[in-house]
């Protein structure tokens, strides 16, 4: 079954895409803000059929040259990056409708740009040495030869907090000739199917190797059916979902968990100067509010170093003003009742602290929850972190940051930094092994390079299987 954005018989927009020969699904239709979605009724039999056909399609992909595959992947990304791309437009619309996050706040562009065609090739070349090992046994110094192939089938369970978080893993798997079955998130009902369709149009062998099947997370029968065919499971999701899957993954299936993480910012005293800090503040606010503050690269807390021309409490007031402007450009979504309730409670506590003279500064739009900026000299950002709130904490020296990162038990995995290069280098050196996997300038945090070792490793290192022959 070839992918089409719209089914031929006047049906809806398909949230699924199966390889040729897979079982025909029963379908149901659902309205989503003016979009009619056509969804399969998932059954273990259907899941098994799709997974088996994907695994069977691998031989065609293995037969393709790496150059051919990488070119097709790059062209697909370029198609989505093009101005007016209809598939991307539809994916963005459906993500916004399903997640409640306005389109302006959840652009796909920053997540696609790192996967520009040349970048995919550079990434794979960096990760797989020699690159020719993906095509066949390739000689290595010393007279041996090596061959590299990925698992027979990867199941990718996508998450809905940000769109396209699954993209680097999908690209990596296809580069290593691993067919992929993607389970889309409820908040991103069309993105995976539409992108898979774009891939299928670029290279016939990819049509046989990329499938999309939605099912209810935790449906153990369907998940057992797909895992029976899988060689790897890459699960994006919350603690409960990831733990639930982990318990059921057969031992022979490689399991890669992408659980809850969050980001922070660090501003050294050198950057806390009038003129300089305003630029940093704008980028910081943008990082914090992009994707509605839901992403694992959304900074929740920023550490402001004392001793600059602007003291942290003064910088906080600058940031509060900047947040207001950026929040207009990146309007709020719907946080959900529980998150809103906890946010309301936390903001209430901050307001009480400011009234009781504890040095707290809180900037927020009246009684609304659209955004907030908090500065507190003592209180650490709580868990759960409040919705669309950037929380500033003063530190005497940024050398304190590694201890604060470790106190978060490895969940803090990315930092934006503003300050001189030597200080960034010193901070990075002290953070090695702490769980922090990305340090980037403010404004670039939400658009990480493909080579970012999300989770501490690359998909190639986690999934690629090597064979070596000795003479």
């Amino acid at each position: 079954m070839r992918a089409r954005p719209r089914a031929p018989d006047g049906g809806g927009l398909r949230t699924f895409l199966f390889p040729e020969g897979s079982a025909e699904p029963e379908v149901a239709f659902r309205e989503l803000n003016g979009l009619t979605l056509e969804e399969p009724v998932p059954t273990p039999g259907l899941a098994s059929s799709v997974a088996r056909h994907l695994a069977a399609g691998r031989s065609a992909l293995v037969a393709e040259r790496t150059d051919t595959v990488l070119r097709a992947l790059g062209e697909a990304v370029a198609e989505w990056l093009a101005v007016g791309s209809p598939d991307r437009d539809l994916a963005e619309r459906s993500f916004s409708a399903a997640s409640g996050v306005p389109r302006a706040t959840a652009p796909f562009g920053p997540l696609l740009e790192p996967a520009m065609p040349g970048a995919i090739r550079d990434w794979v070349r960096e990760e797989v040495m020699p690159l020719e090992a993906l095509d066949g046994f390739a000689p290595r110094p010393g007279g041996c030869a090596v061959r590299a192939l990925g698992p027979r089938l990867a199941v990718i369970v996508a998450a809905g907090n940000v769109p396209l978080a699954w993209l680097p893993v999908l690209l990596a798997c296809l580069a290593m000739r691993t067919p992929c079955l993607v389970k889309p998130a409820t908040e991103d009902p069309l993105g995976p199917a539409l992108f898979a369709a774009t891939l299928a149009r670029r290279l016939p062998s990819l049509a046989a190797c990329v499938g999309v099947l939605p099912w209810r997370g935790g449906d153990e029968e369907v998940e057992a059916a797909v895992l029976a065919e899988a060689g790897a499971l890459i699960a994006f999701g919350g603690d409960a979902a990831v733990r639930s899957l982990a318990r059921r993954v057969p031992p022979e299936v490689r399991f890669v968990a992408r659980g809850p993480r969050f980001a922070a910012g660090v501003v050294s005293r050198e950057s806390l100067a009038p003129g300089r800090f305003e630029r940093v503040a704008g980028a910081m606010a943008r990082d914090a509010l992009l994707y509605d503050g839901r992403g694992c690269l959304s900074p929740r807390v920023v550490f402001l170093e004392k001793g600059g021309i602007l003291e942290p409490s003064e910088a906080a007031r600058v940031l509060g003003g900047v947040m207001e402007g950026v929040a207009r450009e990146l309007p709020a979504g719907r946080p959900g009742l529980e998150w809103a309730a906890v946010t309301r409670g936390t903001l209430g506590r901050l307001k009480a602290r400011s009234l009781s003279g504890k040095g707290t500064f809180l900037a927020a739009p009246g009684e609304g929850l659209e955004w907030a900026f908090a500065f507190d000299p003592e209180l650490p950002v709580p868990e759960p972190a409040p919705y669309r709130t950037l929380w500033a904490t003063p530190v005497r020296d940024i050398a304190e940051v590694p201890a604060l990162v470790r106190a978060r038990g490895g969940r803090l995995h990315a930092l934006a930094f503003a300050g001189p290069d030597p200080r960034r280098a010193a901070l990075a050196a002290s953070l090695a092994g702490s769980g922090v996997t990305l340090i980037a300038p403010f404004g670039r945090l939400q658009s990480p390079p493909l080579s970012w070792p999300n989770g501490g490793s690359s998909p190639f290192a986690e999934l690629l299987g090597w064979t070596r022959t000795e003479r």
Partner: protein
Amino acid sequence: MQERVLKFLALPGSEPFESLALDLFAYQYANNPAYRSWCDSLGVAPGRVAAVDDIPAVPAQAFRELDLACGPPAAEFRTSGTSGGGHGRHLVPSLEPYRASALAWFGRCVMPEGWKLRTLALAVPPEKRPSSSLSRMLGWVIGEFGEPGSGWFAGEDGVANDRLAEALLDAARTGTPVLVLAASAALARFLSYCESSGVAVRLPGGSRLMDTGGLKGAVVPGPVPSLRDFQAGLYRRVTSVLGIPEDRCVNEYGMTELSSQLYDSTVLDRHEGREPGSPPLKLAPPWLRVTAVDPATLRPVAPGEAGVLRFTDLANAGSVLAVLTEDIGRILPGGLELLGRPAAAEARGCGLDLAPRMAAG
């Protein structure tokens, strides 16, 4: 003002709830400096408030930071949670409204027959934990509803399992109905003790259980269950181990920042010849108004819709009557359906913890 409140607690129809609530708001605005500053920051003063729902509600978390009292406290009750650092403190200038509210509604919802029963409390007595509002309330309950042989079966080092089991076996042997009062988590641990050591009793008819606290502090194997599933599972075990039927089990919902409590309607329904609902709804006393509000606007949601719970508690006469919680529920014709207490929820998202159905990116 306190005399008016006490009169209302004794005779809820003695005057309209609304007028008393608005007068109490004016009293608290005048006599509670921290609350006044809260109201002033919102630009709200008594003359500008015409409806109960417009009385500024203080978030429960603000009790960690502000001394919200209308006078020198006679008691200081502290919350048990320490998430985010610090305890919430409810400063109570007079215990009379709290006592009157607690006993009246407990009697109505848990002991509607007007009986007294041997009462066994899986809780720390108030003299050992004066900062616990629950201990204080249970002490009053034992004093009012307890028969000889009543007692406390927990201390700072936990539940006295052997002694409690012996007391329950004695009650079963002698045909003495009992009232068991327990924190839900402590009860769950005691039941585990009974199950692992083979203790099972059949308490006489009329025995009953009141538990409170839900999942707080509970150790549960595997995925964290919903509040409803946890409670239902707990009561099945109570029936199995203690012989108290599920329709004699009543869950209390209260919080340190309030002086009034809500109870499952189960026992009262049975007493008045109604079939208890499933799940049971929680009943609020006439002096406590429960509203489900939209957390973004703080305005009431439509009837039957889920919202964040806001309480207007006249028994909070000496502190603040309007309290905003982080708990989720909906108001149905028969009472409150408590849907969750997300502040105690686990992380489940990509650093966003509580965003529903969100996850890693």
